[in-house]
């Protein structure tokens, strides 16, 4: 059983939902990321989505675009991100780590080489926002051969037939993008999310995580009631941006937000 699968199994037994924070690796400097990951795990994160910075983050809003620019200026490249995961794994062998980013940095290394290195580093899953399942045969084969989960996105515009195909290709969990737009955009509509998640659940046994548009304790709590996991990114990355000149404050202050979201979800 993969680390992601067993994470969701354990949550199910305890009647809780997954809290999945996203941060961009190397933002604003590489030194903060591993400490931040530990702080996230200690304050109630169940899975960590670690963003791989890319020069052209087409699916991201301004908050994560700027995070990518800071991380790239700090010299963060895909191999550095793998090194951060390996360092994180020295003290944490439970919390699944999913790399989230764009295809081209993986293309540059080569699928097979990248997947082997990712497995060795202790990565659990990979989510590539510009790689739809139609183009992902070779990519998914390389993931599978290395025991890594393929996390795919589902959108409000995804047809039922397509949803079924995507769920069949994915593993670990599926990520439902709750709004039409880029990361950090408008607030989501919980009723709509609930009806879509119900539809997704009728097609797959995979857990359904929901992201985009979750901004605070109330929205996290509301989404956790209707899904299996809550993915939160821009609100955390915003805090990191505010503290870019005070890197020592990043881990504790971002962890405080995560703890608050956790409390909201557990009360829900």
């Amino acid at each position, binding site marked *: 059983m993969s680390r992601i699968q067993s994470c969701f199994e354990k949550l199910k037994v305890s009647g809780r939902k997954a809290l999945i924070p996203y941060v961009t690796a190397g933002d604003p400097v590489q030194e903060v990321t591993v400490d931040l990951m530990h702080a996230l795990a200690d304050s109630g994160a169940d899975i960590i989505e670690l963003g791989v910075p*890319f020069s*052209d983050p087409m*699916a991201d809003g301004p908050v994560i675009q700027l995070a990518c620019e800071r991380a790239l200026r700090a010299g963060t490249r895909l191999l550095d991100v793998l090194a951060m995961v390996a360092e994180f794994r020295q003290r944490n062998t439970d919390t699944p780590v999913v790399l989230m980013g764009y295809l081209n940095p993986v293309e*540059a290394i080569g699928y097979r080489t990248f997947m082997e290195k990712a497995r060795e580093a202790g990565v659990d899953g990979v989510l590539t926002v510009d790689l739809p399942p139609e183009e992902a045969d070779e990519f998914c084969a390389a993931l599978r051969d290395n025991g890594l989960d393929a996390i795919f996105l589902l959108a409000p515009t995804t047809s039922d037939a397509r949803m079924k195909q995507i769920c069949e290709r994915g593993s670990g969990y599926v990520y439902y*993008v709750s709004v039409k737009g*880029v990361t950090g955009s408008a607030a989501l509509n919980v009723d709509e999310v609930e009806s879509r998640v119900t539809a997704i659940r009728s097609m797959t046994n995979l857990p359904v995580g929901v992201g985009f548009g979750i901004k605070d304790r109330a929205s996290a709590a509301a989404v956790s009631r209707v899904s299996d996991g809550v993915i939160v990114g821009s609100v955390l990355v915003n805090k990191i941006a505010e503290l870019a000149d005070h890197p020592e404050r990043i881990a504790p202050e971002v962890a405080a937000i995560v703890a608050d979201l956790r409390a909201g979800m557990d009360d829900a």
Partner: protein
Amino acid sequence: MPTTVDLNELMALPDATGHFGPYGGRFASETLMGALDELAALYEKMWRDPEFQAEFDRDLAHYVGRPSPLYHAERLSRELGGAQIYLKREDLNHTGAHKVNNTIGQALLAKFMGKPRVIAETGAGQHGVASATVAARLGLECVVYMGAEDVRRQALNVYRMKLLGATVVPVQSGTRTLKDALNEAMRDWVTNVDNTFYIIGTVAGPHPYPKMVRDFQCVIGREARQQCLAQTGKLPDALVACVGGGSNAIGLFHPFIGDADVRMVGVEAGGYGLETGQHAAPLCKGRPGVLHGNRTYLMEDDAGQIIGTHSVSAGLDYPGVGPEHAWLKDTGRAEYVAINDDEALDAFRRLTRVEGIMPALESAHAIAHAIKMAPQMSPDQVLLVNLSGRGDKDIHTVADIDGITV
């Protein structure tokens, strides 16, 4: 390098999923996949519909002013003492460049789909102007994304777009040029996909864009083929066109792919020189990767990050290139070279003085390479150059270089 592929098969590409050999495809956000499927299906249907074709042809004739002339540049040819240079005068189209061939076609699709809003990215501003123009004609809302750096160097076109009723959004992210404008347009589309048609300006992006834009631009090559036969009694010996994203070049090349004896030469922006790294020549110096929805040659670093490009011409200042060009390169059917900024500027001045035709700085790259090629050829040979746009928009850039305030 002579090609070993079957030319008819090469001409029939892309396949049903938008691939040209290993290139092309559809690497887009999940939110857009439904819209891309819908667009591909509608486009395939309309392109075969005689009524749509008739409307497209009518607009090209009466609104754009086609066919554009094929002009024998006799004085330039004589000076060079080699091949006869013929210029395909896309600069004489309404709005001053080849870009409008494509925006006419896409606007017809937008109208048919009932989308009240169109968006576009632009580099030199020619595609933005061509999009704003068709939007004005059809009464559609139009938003054009343009890198802040390009807004600065193409002020005239920015004002033209505003006069046409478009909103121009300067893009401050990344390198603040064409690639960032494309990123921002994609972000808009993903947010407003229900009511918005994205008019991509070049033969790049996710399927069906590279095919669709090519098909709309192929009028250039079809006309040029007939005109060349009519005027010279034979096909051209070589074609030359500048390549940024590559839409004017593919529009000229594609109808000739099956004519094995016609050489096809694409000219990329060599910037300060290929050896400096400061250029925009992914086919000459890049390597395959994935950006903006397709797999193609890219300017990138070892870690797969897209690197900044440089060209004196905003329209060529792009780190990728249409996937069909990538495959034409690999198969050897077309060859790709680079022309530096200063060579393009020399060609701009020379064509202006010798023929009384002021080319866009983009097109001046093609002229510059033709000036190199012609003397190597014999006077009974024909070198057909795509003059993709007129140079009025670049007068400020050239004046700046001359130290003159206009």
